[in-house]
């Protein structure tokens, strides 16, 4: 380490230390206490419990009103017997004293002396507690004790980090007991608290701590006993097994102090006990690791250092790189990432300035995974970024509540990885390594190892930044300082594998594998091109031995064999060329180098080197290397070979030695002269500087006086303000009360209220107004006419103006867009001094009231219109039954006029026509019981009007508000209806009783009435047919016979008449005679038709029967004529004279006619045998006894009867001519019998003549014999035998009984 490497300590030591000796300072413990709001109470409790002989001093920092004198000291003096003083500058700290900060000052401590500083920050941004803690940590080191008590914000937390880093004790008030828990919580959240306690419990802990070895022993008094060392080794072993962290290379003293600290915090007496404790409590190992791995970091910690880094390292780097190229940075021991993000921000800023974009890779590594976790999240409390200016906060952070999150693009440039610098391989090809305040915790060997590692890891020319107290140590030869103050270095020289002690890669699979430095493993020679090889060979062969030194005169490069000129002196190795130069060379070399540096040109000198008993002349040349710009100088050594022997024999002792001494003296003189000149110059410069400083001091003093003056002024002004403030506060309280009352009043009424000032700008409004006007609290002060009204009110502003002018209250109703109505009430706004300062507008929702009012009006109009227009007579009376009103219908019905009747008794109405007992009854009940009645029937003959049938409804209208009830009668005159109903009943009876089908159809041809006659004729029930078309009845056998009556009626036909066959319900046809007539309304429009049908089936049958009869008659007549023709033809056949023929024919016709008579008499249904015989023999009877006729009843069919008549006539004629009837005594017996069973009955009929002349068989056969012999058997399917015995003709007929079918 060189001297320049301790600027901080140097300045600290420079502070004057008046009074007591340094030892006393060391032994007085200083307890720094920070508080803010609620602090006085906490301090009081603390000092109540704190003994006055603890030997410690207490320095208290509070937020005090910078403009007021503090009473703190007085307050606390009452709580402790220790002296309490307000701090004055340069005050020595004494034990058992309490020091209270002065207002408007920052308090720092250095070397046991208190300093008051004017705060640099504005009021409100100050963190005086942080300032105190920081200075205490720096001053007291591990003996520092910090106490954080009640307060708001995060003041103190940053300072505590330094306290923690120094190894001090931190007590934090339990937030539960703190009046304001912001500061305690902030400290606890940052993991800073060693103990969390109530203020009154803190003194006990402090007492223990004070007595502890850790504090009691002064720093540096390291325990070197081997047993203790052994125990510490065991502790480290336990920690390594438990947590994997190896602390073997950490600085022993630090480790020991930290472990001691844990002992004291846990109140454990011996290391052995602690070891046992550690073994049983895993949590303790973690806490110990946390304490050992110190993390004190913040954004831009030592802002100047970072600014310098930006200017000296990053700006040139950015300038040299192309857009798109990679910038690689390593931040080992990055802790929670602030340093890494700081570097990232700097690079980003410089890149933006240069208008370039790079692929930035920042490897941020740390051994503690929990730190990395925090770093990766990139979320920091607001306190952490207080050191950043607003521009940086805006650009790199997203603010959220009380935290700041690193923005994504910045976060993306940083890679966080777990990495142990001592055990893991390094990264490589880096442009920058920043490793601040890490090496100090390590043993020197470990430090140097890491520096070498960084050298290796950096690119040629790459930069390194260390902490303020850290240096490159013995590796200064390979690093060129860029900023001595801020420990920035630049890598120089080739990669030196020899100095790098690579950590052996251990099996740690969970760790990210670091990048392998592959290229470095190759020999540098192997990489050289042939040209370089040749160049190197030439140089070695011909070039003189030389060294290249840098501006600090350190050798950075050796060429050739320089052992003849340079050697390493005993002691620590050094690269300083002047240290190495052999005797006889140093003085001249120093002079030559300076000259060469000053003049910028080569400077040569001759020198003689003592060499193994002789002198060897050598020419030394110092050549500045202008190209490098780094102050490099090449010093070459060339042996002089001037024709002499290579080794000049030593000259004779005396003369040559004197001459040599003279020479050397001269050289020294000239050197001395040079030096003197230099010193004089420097002296002059210092004088000038002194002058400047003095004058500046003068200036500052005058400024200070001015400030003092203004301070006094300010104080008096302040007093005034205090008084005013007191008054104002009481006013404010009153106002708050009024405001509360008003707010509650307005919230309670929920009335929309708007206050306008005299310019009609919105002064204030209630929340209820939002329904009418979209107003936000921010709209106060804006003119009303800037807002769209939610209601229709064109006169709002003009009305407001009128109210202002006439000072009257104005009410009007306005309608809202949503259909609601509001009563707008406007009155002047009067201030207390009765000034008109605007208008107050209130809106009352009157929608419902308005609607009710409107509804009642509408209801009245509605009711009136009904009464006027209704066709039913209406009568309204009061309770005394006097007429109140009558409507036009009543006037018309009873031919009265309302004007005349109003006020009269109802019973006088219509000339007393209403004076009826029944009405008295009904109305009496209605008035008394309010019992309504419906359809009360009243049949009454009214004078001048006649009989009327009336239906009456009565109601009593009860009215609210004690008004008289009304009696309402609604009358219906049903006289006409009754009459019509009677007629219609008669008609219906006729239709119902008619045997004809009476049907009506509507205009669509559908049946709408169906009488019983129709049911009878068609067999369909009315229910089946109503609604069906008439065509349902059509007989499918006779389609098209039914005319479309409706069409015909529409064409103008009046009646239709036709006969048609209809289909009955059982499918049989029925003939009906139909008459159809149109049904028309008064306008003649066709409504339908009536259809009357009469059943004519019987008549049709009779007509049919008659046709058949006529046909049959014709047939019979023709048949009869054919028979007559046959008789005529047969009569004329043969030889008969015409007169005889005429007689015979007419007699035969007469018989035929008689047979027909007989048949007609029996209705041509046949006759009987006896009757036929009686009728036929009648003309031949003559006397009573000539015929004997006897036989049972035998029925004869008409045709057989006729044939029988004809045949019997022939027998009679023949008997009259020739037989028994030709004489008077002759007689004929006609007998017959029926024999056999009923189904095979046979007839035997016999004609027997007797008493006549003797009979001969006839000579010729005529028509008569044909009839008897041929026709009769043919007709009767029998046999006829005629015999002629002498007694008379006998004729026997035997046949089946003719009544039977053949």
């Amino acid at each position, binding site marked *: 380490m060189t001297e320049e490497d301790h600027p901080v300590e140097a300045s600290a030591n420079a502070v004057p230390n008046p009074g007591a000796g340094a030892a006393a300072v060391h032994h007085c413990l200083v307890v720094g206490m920070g508080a803010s709001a609620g602090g006085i109470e906490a301090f009081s409790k603390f000092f109540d419990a704190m003994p006055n002989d603890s030997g410690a001093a207490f320095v208290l920092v509070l937020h005090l009103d910078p403009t007021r004198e503090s009473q703190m000291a007085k307050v606390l003096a009452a709580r402790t017997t220790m002296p309490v003083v307000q701090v004055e500058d340069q005050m020595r700290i004494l034990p058992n004293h309490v020091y209270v900060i002065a207002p408007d000052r920052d308090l720092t401590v250095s070397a046991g002396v208190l300093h008051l500083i004017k705060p640099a920050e504005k009021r409100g941004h100050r963190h005086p507690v942080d300032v105190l803690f920081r200075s205490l940590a720096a001053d007291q080191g591990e003996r520092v004790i910090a106490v954080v008590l009640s307060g708001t914000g995060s003041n103190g937390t940053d300072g505590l980090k330094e306290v923690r880093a120094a190894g001090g004790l931190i007590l934090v008030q339990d937030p539960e007991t703190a009046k304001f828990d912001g500061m305690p919580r902030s400290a606890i959240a940052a993991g800073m608290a060693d103990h969390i306690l109530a203020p009154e419990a803190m003194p006990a802990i402090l007492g223990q701590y004070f007595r502890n070895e850790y504090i009691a022993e002064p720093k540096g008094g390291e325990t070197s006993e081997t047993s203790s060392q052994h125990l510490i080794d065991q502790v480290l072993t336990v920690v390594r097994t438990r947590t994997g962290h190896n602390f073997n290379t950490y600085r022993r003293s630090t480790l020991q102090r930290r472990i001691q600290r844990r002992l004291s915090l846990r109140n454990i007496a011996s290391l052995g006990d602690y070891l046992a404790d550690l073994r049983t409590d895993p949590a303790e190992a973690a806490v110990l690791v946390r304490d050992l791995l110190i993390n004190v970091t913040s954004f831009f910690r030592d802002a100047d250092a970072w600014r310098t880094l930006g200017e000296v390292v990053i700006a040139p780097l950015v300038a040299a790189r192309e857009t798109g190229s990679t910038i690689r940075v390593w931040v080992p021991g990055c802790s929670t990432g602030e340093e890494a993000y700081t570097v990232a921000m700097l690079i980003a800023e410089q890149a933006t300035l240069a208008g370039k974009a790079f692929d930035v890779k920042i490897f941020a590594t740390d051994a503690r995974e929990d730190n990395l976790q925090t770093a990766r999240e990139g979320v920091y409390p607001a306190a952490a970024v207080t050191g950043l200016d607003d521009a940086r906060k805006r650009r790199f952070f997203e603010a959220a509540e009380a935290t700041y999150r690193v923005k994504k693009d910045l976060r993306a440039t940083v890679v966080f990885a777990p990495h142990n610098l001592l055990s893991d391989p390094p990264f490589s090809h880096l442009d920058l390594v920043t490793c601040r305040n890490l090496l100090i915790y390590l043993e020197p060997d470990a430090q140097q190892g890491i520096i070498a590692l960084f050298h290796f890891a950096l690119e040629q020319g790459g930069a390194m930044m260390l902490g303020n107290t850290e240096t490159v140590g013995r590796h200064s030869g390979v690093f060129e300082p860029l900023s001595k103050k801020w420990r920035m270095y630049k890598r120089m020289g080739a990669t030196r594998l020899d100095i790098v002690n690579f950590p052996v890669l251990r099996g740690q699979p969970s760790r990210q594998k670091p990048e392998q430095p592959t290229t470095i493993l190759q020999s540098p020679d192997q990489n050289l091109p042939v040209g370089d090889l040749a160049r190197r060979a030439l140089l070695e062969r011909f070039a003189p031995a030389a060294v290249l030194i840098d501006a600090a005169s350190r050798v950075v490069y050796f060429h050739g064999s320089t052992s003849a000129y340079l050697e390493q002196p005993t002691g620590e190795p050094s690269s300083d060329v002047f240290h190495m130069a052999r005797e006889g060379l140093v003085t001249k070399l120093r002079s030559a180098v300076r000259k060469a540096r000053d003049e910028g040109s080569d400077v040569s000198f001759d020198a003689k080197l003592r060499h193994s008993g002789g002198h060897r002349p050598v020419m030394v040349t110092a050549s500045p290397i202008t190209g490098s710009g780094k102050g490099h100088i090449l010093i070459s050594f060339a042996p002089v070979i001037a024709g002499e022997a290579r080794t000049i024999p030593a000259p004779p002792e005396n003369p040559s030695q004197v001459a040599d001494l003279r020479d050397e003296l001269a050289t020294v003189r000239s050197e001395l002269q040079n030096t003197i000149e230099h010193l004089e110059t420097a002296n002059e410069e210092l004088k000038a500087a002194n002058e400047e400083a003095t004058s500046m001091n003068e200036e500052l003093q005058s400024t200070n006086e001015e400030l003092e003056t203004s301070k006094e002024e300010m104080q008096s002004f302040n007093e005034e303000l205090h008084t005013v403030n007191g008054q104002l506060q009481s006013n404010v309280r009153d106002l708050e009360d009024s405001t509360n009352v008003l707010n509650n009043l307005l919230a309670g009424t929920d009335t929309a209220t708007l206050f306008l000032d005299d310019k009609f700008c919105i002064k204030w409004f209630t929340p209820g107004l939002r329904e009418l006007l979209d107003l936000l609290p921010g709209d106060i002060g804006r003119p009303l006419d800037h807002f769209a009204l939610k209601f229709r009110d064109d006169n709002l502003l003009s009305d407001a103006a009128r109210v202002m002018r006439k000072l009257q209250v104005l009410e009007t109703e306005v309608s809202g867009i949503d259909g609601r109505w509001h009563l707008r009430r406007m009155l002047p706004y009067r201030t207390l001094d009765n000034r008109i300062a605007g208008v107050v507008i209130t809106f009352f929702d009157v929608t419902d009231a308005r609607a009710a009012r409107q509804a009642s009006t509408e209801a009245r109009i509605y009711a009136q219109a009904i009464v006027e227009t209704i066709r039913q007579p209406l009568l309204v009376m009061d309770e005394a039954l006097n007429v109140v009103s009558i409507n036009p219908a009543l006037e018309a019905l009873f031919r009265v006029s309302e004007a005349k009747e109003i006020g009269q008794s109802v019973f006088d109405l219509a000339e007393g026509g209403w004076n009826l007992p029944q009405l008295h009854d009904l109305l009496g009940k209605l008035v008394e019981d309010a019992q309504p009645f419906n359809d009360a029937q009243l049949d009454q003959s009214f004078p001048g009007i006649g009989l009327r049938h009336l239906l009456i409804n009565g109601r009593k209208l009860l009215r609210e508000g004690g008004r008289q009830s009304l009696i309402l009668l609604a009358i219906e005159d049903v006289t006409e209806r009754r009459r019509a109903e009677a007629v219609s009943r008669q008609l219906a009876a006729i239709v119902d009783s008619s045997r004809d089908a009476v049907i009506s159809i509507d205009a669509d041809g559908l049946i709408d009435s169906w009488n019983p006659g129709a049911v009878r004729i068609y067999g369909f029930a009315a229910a089946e047919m109503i609604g069906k078309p008439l065509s349902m009845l059509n007989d499918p056998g006779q389609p098209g016979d039914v005319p479309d009556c409706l069409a015909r009626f529409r064409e103008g036909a009046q009646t239709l008449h036709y006969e048609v066959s209809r289909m009955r319900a059982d499918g049989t046809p029925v003939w009906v005679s139909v008459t159809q007539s149109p049904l028309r309304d008064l306008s003649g429009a066709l409504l339908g038709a009536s259809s009357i049908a009469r059943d004519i089936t019987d008549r049709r049958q009779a007509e049919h029967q008659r046709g058949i009869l006529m*046909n049959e008659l*014709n*047939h*019979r*007549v*023709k*048949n009869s*004529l*054919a*028979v*007559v*023709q*046959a*008789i005529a*033809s*047969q009569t004329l*056949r043969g030889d008969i004279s015409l007169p005889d023929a005429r007689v015979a024919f007419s007699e035969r016709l007469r018989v035929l006619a008689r047979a027909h008579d007989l048949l007609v008499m029996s209705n041509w249904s046949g006759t009987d045998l006896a009757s036929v015989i009686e009728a036929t023999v009648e003309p031949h009877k003559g006397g009573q006894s000539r015929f004997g006729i006897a036989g049972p009843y035998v029925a004869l069919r008409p*045709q057989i009867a006729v*044939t029988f008549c*004809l045949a019997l006539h022939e027998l009679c004629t023949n008997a009259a001519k020739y037989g028994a009837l030709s004489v008077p005594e002759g007689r004929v017996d006609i007998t017959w019998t029926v024999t056999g069973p009923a189904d095979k009955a046979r007839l035997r009929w016999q004609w027997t003549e007797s008493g006549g002349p003797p009979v001969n068989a006839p000579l010729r056969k005529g028509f008569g014999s*044909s*009839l008897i012999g*041929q*026709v*009769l058997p*043919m*007709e009767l*399917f029998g046999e006829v035998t005629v015999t002629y015995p002498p007694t008379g003709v006998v004729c026997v007929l035997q046949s089946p009984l003719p009544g039977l079918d*053949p």
Partner: protein
Amino acid sequence: MPADTGFLRFMILDDEAIIALDLAGMLEDLGHSVVSMATRVAGGMEFARHGDLDMAILDINVDGVASFPLAEVLQGRGIPIIFASGYGERGLIDGFRDALVLTKPYGMDDLTQVVAKARVVSSQTATRS
């Protein structure tokens, strides 16, 4: 097949025996012979099926029974038929609409003509068959 002028054998069906006898007399006067006289359809059926005859004169309504079943039998045998009826042609039913009809009362001339027609029709039918 009887010649146009040849004598024919007739069957007569008429429920009026007098008319049947008179018709038979008239046919015999014309030189023909009557081989069967029936007053009932049932009584004449046997002869109509199997009798030897050339022509038939049939009343339509025979004692309330229509003579068409018997006429069909004769028609089936190809024997010419003449209907004699008071109904005239109106008394015919389908199948016999074209049959020859002698409307009662008829005279000798009517009979002569209708027999001659029946001969012609019969001969045409025979020729066709």
